[in-house]
């Protein structure tokens, strides 16, 4: 079975959205030989899901969503080859519209995860308003991207968050490793958040698997 890990590892000082809590993973004081770590992270640390309450004043928190919203089929859309801080146009969806089904997740591969450790990670390409509207119109249940933000970080944009979350499309940001997946092919995806309640988002362990092979061994 091929299982693909699409998550960044949570470590101290890892890249994070400017102004968010600085992630810290430190050993807690314990009686030897026991080891326990203290995690100081934000709800949007690393690979994470945004709930509507992240941006919309009356939006639902992550705890109100059933697990089915986070484990679902979907496909990768290739959107590599854009400039830093360039708006990605709607036409990147054209080759995939026919095969995509409402209720799936749509995962945009920009290739920007390669710049994870660089200053350029914060100047990623982002969704144009037309592309965000098209994602909602196609009936996507969840939208993922291998970049810091679906909006422009450099220009402090927010219209894409508004469009997607108002359309009840959950957002997963900071994915990685999408090169391993074939664009346009259907995969199973999992973006299961921490079991939080009235919170605006949560880190996830993002993964994908081949649908033509069993997820668990028989017998």
């Amino acid at each position: 079975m091929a299982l693909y890990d699409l998550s960044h590892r949570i470590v101290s000082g890892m890249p994070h959205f400017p102004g968010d809590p600085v992630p810290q993973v430190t050993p807690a004081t314990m009686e030897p030989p026991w080891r326990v770590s203290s995690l100081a992270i934000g709800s949007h640390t690393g690979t994470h899901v945004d709930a509507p309450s992240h941006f919309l004043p009356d939006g639902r928190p992550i705890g109100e969503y059933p697990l089915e919203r986070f484990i679902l089929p979907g496909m990768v859309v290739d959107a590599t080859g854009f400039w830093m801080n360039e708006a990605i146009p709607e036409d990147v969806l054209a080759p995939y519209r026919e095969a995509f089904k409402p209720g799936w997740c749509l995962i945009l591969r920009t290739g920007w995860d390669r710049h994870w450790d660089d200053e350029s990670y914060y100047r990623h390409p982002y969704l144009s308003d037309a592309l965000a509207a098209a994602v909602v119109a196609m009936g996507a249940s969840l939208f993922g991207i291998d970049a810091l933000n679906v909006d422009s970080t450099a220009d402090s944009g927010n219209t894409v968050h508004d469009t997607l979350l108002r359309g009840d499309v959950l957002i997963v940001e900071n994915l990685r490793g999408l090169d391993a997946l074939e664009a346009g092919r259907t995969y199973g995806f999992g973006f299961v958040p921490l079991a939080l309640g009235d919170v605006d988002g949560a880190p996830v362990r993002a993964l994908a698997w081949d649908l033509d092979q069993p997820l668990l061994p028989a017998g």
Partner: protein
Amino acid sequence: MRDQATAGVEGSTGVVQQPLADVRQEAERILVSAEERGIVLRILGGVAVLMHSPSAEHRALQRAYGDLDFITLGSDRAELPSLFVELGYTPDAEFNTLHGHQRLYFWDSANQRQVDVFVDTLRMSHTLDLRQRLHLDRRTIPLADLLLTKLQIYEINDKDVRDIIALLRDHPLGSGDEEMINLDRLLAILTADWGFYRTTVKNIAVVREALSANGLADDADIASRLDELERAIEAAPKTRAWKLRALIGDRKPWYELPEEVRRD
């Protein structure tokens, strides 16, 4: 669990490993291994541009990547053969014996790829001494030097031009080496060596033509940085040696045509 970042053969010191097919991952693997051994090794060429400039992956600038070029310090040169053998490469023993004080070759038979390692100085169409520039970046040489390694190529090709455009698209000219192209470093070279200047001016014109051919003529960042670079070069005071060589001009060749040796 399939994980692209760790694909390939794991290895430890003393165990021969297998070079990775992905040229960028392979470059990282080599750089990490050198750093672990305390060897100063920095990557040059298109892969170095790719590491610094996301625009190198833009659809208008994408290009294939072949061989890997590095530079090391003369004091670390002797450590390289064992490093590359352990990483799965075959040294070009004859070439390295004859020319190893300036340049070393290693061959990756699995991927049919050559690794060139310059020692202290890049000697191609023009000469660029990099000994004092190798401690300014952990993986590559500074952006200004990376740009100079491209601008010095007399027989410049399309890949080199794309690399120059990507560097200028993503980085402003400035007075430091941190995420900017150090104009002082460029001028120190180009105001002292008329030949290097002459090739650079020729190549800036080539880049301008390429902008139109690649649909980038309206890109304000690139055009303004080319203008800024050209103005700064022309305005900067030149050395006496530069002026004397300028008097001869194009009547005498001002560049070398380096012979590329490739084992495939």
